[in-house]
């Protein structure tokens, strides 16, 4: 699965799960400030990432994640490693 597919799937899941406007999901969009995700949503976000990568997410890996681009970067890294 190439980068674009991953991005597209990730965006689709964000829109569905968190009722987001697709236009808002830009790479530099901040998860908490711009997309109105909160700490409980972070739990569900980890589930989204697990669905995309087939791997469980540790809190460590996501500690520095702030934007959509950060998450996509982590997803790519996890797929490449796994």
């Amino acid at each position, binding site marked *: 699965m190439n980068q674009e597919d991953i991005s597209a799937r990730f965006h689709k899941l964000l829109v*569905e799960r968190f*009722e987001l406007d697709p236009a808002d999901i830009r790479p530099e969009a901040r998860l908490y400030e711009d997309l109105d995700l*909160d*700490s*409980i949503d972070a739990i569900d976000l980890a589930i989204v990432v697990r669905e995309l990568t087939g791997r469980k997410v540790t809190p460590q890996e996501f500690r520095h994640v702030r934007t959509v681009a950060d998450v996509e970067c982590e997803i790519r890294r996890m797929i490449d490693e796994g």
Partner: protein
Amino acid sequence: METHGFNRIESLRHSALAGLGFAIFGIVALFGLFVPLPILLLVTPRRLREQRIRGLASVGFRLLIRMIEGFGLADIEVRSDGIPDLAGCLLVANHPSYLDAVFLMAHLPRVNCVMKSSLLNHPLFFPFTRLGGYIACDNDDPQKLIEACRAASTRGEPILIFPEGTRSTPGAPLRFRRGAAQVALRAGLRIVPLVVHCDPPALTHGHPWYRMPDRRVHLVIRFGAPCDIADFAGGSSEDLSRMARRATRGLENYFLRQLSSKPHEPLLPP
């Protein structure tokens, strides 16, 4: 409704009485900290401790309510078709004034409450709020919050939560945060809506105790029947985050509708 000029003397009188009432309450609370509380801690077995501390706090709150009513500052009324069995339910309330929380904690002695950290760290009240086993609104560890609510509910405690997260701002639209819906969903709790009317606004943002209204405050608390969070979300869904968002909006709309109806009318189901 006929308008009337603002009676400054009455407002000052009310403010003086409110100040007096709070000063007395402060002294009683200090006394409570140094005498009844330590005695209670000494004689109470561990498993009964939280319950007794909440009972002690509720005595203090009942005194405060007595004073507020006795001074003619407010009259507080509960409207319900019989109070439903609240055990283990999430009591979801709007929060126009300090008075609503004080009254509920005074008259529901077993009730647990999701509290802001400012209350759990309050210089005067922290022994009560910490030892009373109240639930901390923990934004850093939401799982802890959900588990704490689940555990309290299993023990049969009703849990009071204010989705606004703070007192309402008079005149501003109701804004519910998603925490209450998330907790109800993920901890599997039934919901009892409590619609609170406060007229005129008092002890709210912008109306501290030294700016009391010039007439008596009418506080009416309307209890709804226990219902499911799904009732506010227009149905169940496997997608919890989506459902929590829908339920939060549903709760907001429900409260807006009920707040615009007359306080003495029964609450409609969601």
